[in-house]
């Protein structure tokens, strides 16, 4: 990925799709970190789900098989997951919605945002399989396909990413130190450092690894969610937005 993207428009569109298509939930994950979405899960449930999706993705990454989609049906609901490194899109739906339709909704969503997310074609459209073989079918009629009238025209801000892995690492180190400084205002310095380490470990980011610039904001938001005092939370939020802004200008 040579560019990073402001994901606000993508997340807004995802939430819109969830509402319009009567899904139970939708979440977009980037390099193992939730960028945003709308689910009925608790924070712990969301974290656990994202962790398990990462584990599922790793299962195939280790065997060097490229996985496109996963559908899991449970007795109380279903999940369709689209895997396209570095992204994963998960759609939660009930038995009242056909999985073919959800697969199509996901395809349409990813096609719509393919350029912004820089997705490969392989994940976008797969043929249907019938007992007689493969068949290309549009399962949605035109009227239904036209239902989504949300922000197609919304612009997506594309920004240059650091040239090398070293630069990306340096940016992360800088961001991390400044985030520690920020949280040191309300915690002790050592406590702030441990707090950030703990959150990174929970996300599966090992020592020596770093987050990319596009992940700074969701990571910061994750940290802020842990702050209980509403006034402190608001203040930290403002400062964090400003801090992230310095890295994404």
């Amino acid at each position, binding site marked *: 990925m040579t560019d990073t993207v402001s994901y606000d428009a993508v997340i807004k569109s995802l939430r819109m799709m969830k509402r319009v298509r009567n899904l139970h939930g939708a979440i977009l994950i980037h390099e193992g970190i939730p960028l945003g979405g709308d689910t009925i*899960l608790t924070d712990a*449930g969301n974290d*656990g*789900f994202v*962790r*398990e*999706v990462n*584990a*599922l993705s790793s*299962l*195939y990454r280790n065997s060097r*098989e*490229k*996985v*496109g*989609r*996963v*559908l*899991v*049906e*449970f*007795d*109380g*609901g279903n*999940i*369709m997951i689209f895997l396209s490194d570095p992204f994963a899109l998960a759609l*939660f739906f009930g038995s009242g919605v*056909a*999985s*073919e339709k*959800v*697969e199509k909704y996901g395809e349409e969503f990813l096609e719509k945002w393919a350029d912004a997310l820089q997705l490969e074609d*392989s994940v976008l459209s*797969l*043929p*249907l*399989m*019938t*007992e*007689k*073989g*493969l068949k290309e079918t549009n399962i949605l009629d035109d009227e239904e396909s036209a239902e989504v009238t949300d922000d197609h025209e919304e612009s997506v801000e594309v920004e240059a990413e650091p040239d090398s892995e070293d630069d990306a690492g340096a940016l992360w180190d800088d961001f991390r130190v400044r985030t520690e400084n920020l949280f040191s205002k309300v915690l002790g310095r050592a406590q702030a450092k441990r707090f950030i380490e703990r959150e990174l470990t929970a996300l599966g980011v090992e020592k020596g690894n770093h987050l990319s610039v596009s992940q700074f904001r969701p990571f910061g938001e994750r940290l802020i969610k842990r702050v209980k005092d509403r006034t402190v939370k608001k203040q930290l939020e403002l400062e964090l937005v400003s801090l992230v802004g310095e890295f994404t200008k």
Partner: protein
Amino acid sequence: MTIKNYSVVEIRNDSVKSVAGDSSERIRSRFAREAESLQERAMLIGKAIGMTAVVSVAVSKEKGGIAFRFARDSGEDFDAKGILVEGDSPNVSSLLKVLK
């Protein structure tokens, strides 16, 4: 275009029996190995979001796919039914549909 490299299997008492398509030992072993890992991962995903029983799982890959579903009732003469596709990459909904 027709999918040629596939196998439909039924699992009874931990034994994988081929019922259609390629019935080779390689295919049956591969299915058993992959389905076992997938079942475990699906259960952990379910646990994370408060779901208890996995009904079915389907995965489409760049070159192939796998799906299985558990028997719905005692009227079905198997514990689980599955399909393994090699080469072609069908979508996940239709993989499961073939098993229903």
